């Protein structure tokens, strides 16, 4: 029986990957953001998870509009990063855990979450930047991964309530699996931001801080928002909050907040970082 040890929320902005490869962590623009991460590293060193389930949205690397799954899951032994159009050097492949992936798939589909299963899946910045932020300072990535993709590109998007329920089913699947792994769930992206339209640059600190508070001990409040409500309050790409809700759904009802950091701006975005530990 695998054990879910806790969850992390983190930004996945592409510019962060650039800042890491150029060693800009101590620059005044970046420092308040990167200073949030050493306590996360300490927690991970203490907990030593074996597997990370990374919940993210593909931004047009693996999936195009020809076939756009609402929910997809990787079932590969290895996941490859690739050029997303900006000519950046792809990161080294990330190890998978196909046995655990398939056990999760069996359980999710039995629970009526009909996932698209991917035995080959390129992972974009939504997956790779969190991996760099959490484990990039290590010589070797110390976790196996299970990527889960939620569509936030083409409407209709799954509702916040549905994504939270997916998380609950995911939690149940992991805990019922035959794996003896310690598992951390990572909800990526967010918080408020908008890239497109005359409203580009929209950020809503008050709404973000409310989300960072409620997601800890009262996440169901956030599941009552529609996608449209979230877009109005958090910007078009603020819809990535659903990725956080899926993460939170997989944790136990009561969690303790180990660490948090909130910073405006990184690129066009407000960045929210949380470490939540499952109740023992």
């Amino acid at each position, binding site marked *: 029986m695998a054990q879910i040890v806790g969850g992390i929320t983190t930004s996945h902005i592409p*510019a962060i990957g650039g800042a890491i490869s150029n060693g800009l962590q101590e620059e005044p623009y970046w420092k308040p953001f990167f200073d949030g991460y050493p306590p996360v590293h300490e927690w991970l060193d203490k907990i030593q998870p074996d597997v990370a389930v990374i919940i993210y949205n593909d*931004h*047009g*690397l693996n999936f*195009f*509009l*020809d076939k756009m799954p609402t929910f997809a899951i990787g079932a590969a032994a290895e996941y490859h990063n*690739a*050029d*997303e*159009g*900006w*000519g950046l050097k792809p990161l080294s492949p990330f190890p998978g855990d196909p046995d655990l992936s398939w056990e999760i798939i069996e359980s999710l589909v039995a629970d009526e979450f009909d996932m698209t299963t991917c035995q080959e899946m390129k992972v974009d910045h939504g997956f790779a930047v969190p991996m760099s932020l959490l484990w990039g300072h290590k010589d070797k990535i110390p976790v196996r991964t299970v990527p889960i993709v939620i569509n936030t*590109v*083409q*409407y*209709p998007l799954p509702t916040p309530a549905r994504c939270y329920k997916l998380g609950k089913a995911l939690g149940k699947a992991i805990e019922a699996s035959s794996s003896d792994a310690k598992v951390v769930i990572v909800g990526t992206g967010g918080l408020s931001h*908008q*890239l*497109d*339209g*005359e*409203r*580009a*640059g929209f*950020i809503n*600190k*008050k709404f973000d801080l409310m989300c960072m508070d409620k997601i800890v001990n009262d996440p169901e409040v956030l599941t009552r928002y529609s996608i*449209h409500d979230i*877009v*109005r309050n958090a910007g*078009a790409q603020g819809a990535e909050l659903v990725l956080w809700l899926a993460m939170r759904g997989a944790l136990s009802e009561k969690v303790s907040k180990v660490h948090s950091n909130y*910073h*405006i*701006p990184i*690129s*066009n975005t*407000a960045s929210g970082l949380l470490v939540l530990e499952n109740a023992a």
Partner: protein
Amino acid sequence: MSSAAKKIEAIPGTTIFDGAQSQKGYQLNKMCYSFNDAECREEFLADEDAYCEKFALTAEQRDAIKARNVLQLIEAGGNIYYLAKFAGIFGLGVQDVGAQQTGMSVEDFKAMLVAAGDD
């Protein structure tokens, strides 16, 4: 064509990328998606018209590509995630794209983002 997104209150300055937009912009987005591949980016730069022809872009989409105008590209069905790959060909990031759409200088756009932290 009716969609739930259109029946609810519109959000100013925001285009919901629904089925109608996705159908309208399919070829444009398909072209931009091809820019994940460095060879495709080079092919576009070598002969822009021929490349647009290959993807059967509409006249509206071709004009928007020619103008490098993000609001026009969105109007023509473009989705920001694929358009970001088009912008990348010219070394433009999301802050350049944001500045263009809001009619601000890049410096002012960045300052606006920093100021959002003071609220």
